[in-house]
């Protein structure tokens, strides 16, 4: 902590006037992003809580709903996101080292992975649309009732599964879209050479955000896709 009155510092244009040092600015940005992610945990947490309670009470319907999801696409999406987190982490490191070209390449790769994730999600949702599994007026799970004669499926309970499925994956996808926006912004400025060895904070905190969205998916995937993959009965 600086302990002299207004230190006249040699600083770049990125030091905002209300901060006294670059370290203070960077630490503040970092703490701010961590706190924001804490709020996001609470935000998703409310829905996870509702999901867990209903999964306990309506196990059969939730298991049937889970099995109706496409495990192939879900797994591919999980791998896609994990790869994107890798490229993000590498891009932060590249920014720290001032390697502009590498940062740009890694950010582009991240965006490709992010868009791939969204595309696959779109495919999955479209499948659900065709199967009449989207909650609302045309919701119908007769197909699941036929597929699993050994359990009783209550359509309203099944609709709760799919309501929570779409709410949770929808909220997650919205965060991905925002992430794509943030990373497009970072890509633009990285290309313009804005991030240097002394100033790479936006890449760092953008990275934190992306990692968080990835972690939410790591929880969503098993909770939504992997319930009861053993034979139902």
């Amino acid at each position, binding site marked *: 902590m600086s*302990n002299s009155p207004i230190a006249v510092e040699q600083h770049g244009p990125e030091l905002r006037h209300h901060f006294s040092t670059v370290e203070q600015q960077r630490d*503040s940005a970092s*703490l701010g992003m961590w*706190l*924001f992610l804490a709020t996001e945990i609470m*935000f998703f947490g*409310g829905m996870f809580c509702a999901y867990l309670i209903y999964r306990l009470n*309506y196990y059969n319907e939730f298991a049937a709903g889970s099995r109706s999801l496409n495990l192939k696409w879900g797994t591919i999406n999980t791998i896609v996101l994990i790869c994107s987190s890798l490229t993000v982490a590498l891009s932060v490191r590249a920014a720290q080292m001032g390697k502009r070209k590498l940062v740009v390449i890694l950010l582009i790769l991240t965006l490709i992975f992010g868009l791939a994730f969204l595309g696959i999600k779109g495919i999955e949702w479209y499948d659900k649309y065709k199967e009449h599994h989207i909650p609302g007026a045309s919701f119908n799970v007769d197909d699941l009732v036929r597929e699993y004669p050994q359990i009783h499926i209550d359509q309203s309970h099944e609709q*709760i599964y799919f*309501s929570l499925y779409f709410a949770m994956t929808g909220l997650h996808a919205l965060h991905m879209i925002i992430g794509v926006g943030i990373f497009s912004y970072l890509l633009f400025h990285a290309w313009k050479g804005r991030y240097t060895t002394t100033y790479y904070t936006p890449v760092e905190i953008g990275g934190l955000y992306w990692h968080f969205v990835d972690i939410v998916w790591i929880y969503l995937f098993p909770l939504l896709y992997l319930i009861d993959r053993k034979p139902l009965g």
Partner: protein
Amino acid sequence: MATAATIAEREHYLNKEYGIRSWLLTTDHKRIALLYLVSITFFFFIGGFFALLIRLELLTPAGDLVQADTYNKLFTMHGMVMIFFFLIPSIPAVLGNFLVPMMIGAKDLAFPRINLLSWYLYIISGIMMLHCIVTGGVDTGWTFYTPFSTAFANTKVIEAGLSIFVAGFSSILTGLNFVVTIHRMRAPGMTWSRLPLFIWAHYATSIIQLLGTPVLAVTLVLVVCERLLGLGIFDPNRGGDPLLFQHLFWFYSHPAVYIMILPSMGVVAEIVPCFSRKRIFGYHAVALSSIAIAVFGFLVWAHHMFVAGISLYSAMIFSILSYLVAVPSAIKVFNWTATMYKGSITFSTPMLYAFGFIGLFTMGGLTGLFLACLGIDVHVTDTYFVVAHFHYIMVGGAVMGYLGGMHFWWPKISGRLYPEWLGKFAALIVFLGFNLTFFPQFILGYLGMPRRYWQYPPEFQVLNVMSTAGSTILAVGYVLPMVYFLWSMRYGKIADENPWGAAGLEWKTASPPPTFNFEETPEVTWEAYNYDQIPAPAEVLVEQ
């Protein structure tokens, strides 16, 4: 001696730039505080107007002023507007925004542009709520209980829910800004133990805003989806659980009441030492009790659900926890009172509001013990007893703290003094009007008058008439400060740097402060509340 001429010559945050752009695009935390001041005052009067209509309807047992549906909308929107658009922002967004950077010796909050964004989110949510109100309103109660709100109400539930959703983000961002600022922007020498208790209170409040509000946000999203798409997450007729809604709702809404009271407690902790000319008694106890309230506040939500259908054992656990959360509040009251012991006390307007706070918050808090008590709660929950309880805390507590703070820091904010005798007079009116309005409601509650009743049995009339009479007096008490604060901006006596002789960094800079708060970054080498080192003002305002 400062004169109007010297004020005009000196550059400060108010005259640095003129024009509407300089206000609407400002990132100066002090200007943003004033933007909030105007906005929340506007919503206070809207919510107050609804309250007046409610009290007028309740003058007679029959429903004869407005229709039942209208009455239901009135109490719903009174609650929503007062809670989300007045109480929750009030002290943090006005006094907190203005003072937090100054009290810790910083030039601004950590994220000034996010601060402005907070205000714009508040305005957007306010416009949405106003639109909802004028195009039909909402009648679910501010608590949105399902399945009524999702499947039976035919009013603008979705719009109201989305409005509050947006307002929540304003609250979250303010909290985020404060926490980062307090952690990272303290001036050299400003250690945690030297922080004013106002800062500790806002820190605790911000933690609650950060962690609690998102749960309300997601709950409202689910309610809106349920209503739009006919889902059944909270509707038992469609396989869902209405108690799940209540748990999720109260998980935020109980901590929310601590968002509303903690900042006021911070204000009182600044006023009482100043006008007793001594350090607060038990600084660490008061600081830690703010944190304790924030933590325990998250553990008691189901005390709103004792008769809702939760299990016996659940109810017992939440009852015990509710008693635990009362202890830190009690500690604060005792410490403030002990601060006055062997002090040198002046009866300025802020101090009168502080006295009012201590008395009324004590009464409101003690009646909370009644509600935490399972055997009593079964009888008085959902009655006017609860209404009286929370108005004692919110109005007798939080609003009095807010008004006390506004009077205390008005010279710093505006560079002017308000007329002291009018200040005292208004404080007295508020105190008397308040008690006449809400004390009868305790009696009404135990008698059995339920809340949210448009019409009621005739034997409840006398107490209702008393309550309405009080509310008209209270209204006068609220209008007066608005009038004389505005008056003082033009005609009030010029204030110098520290008219109260108060401790705190904000009093070591000019009134009004320069844009970057301090001419030089302060370096703190003294403890908080160092009243042994600060001389009392020679000309005490009470003598005016």
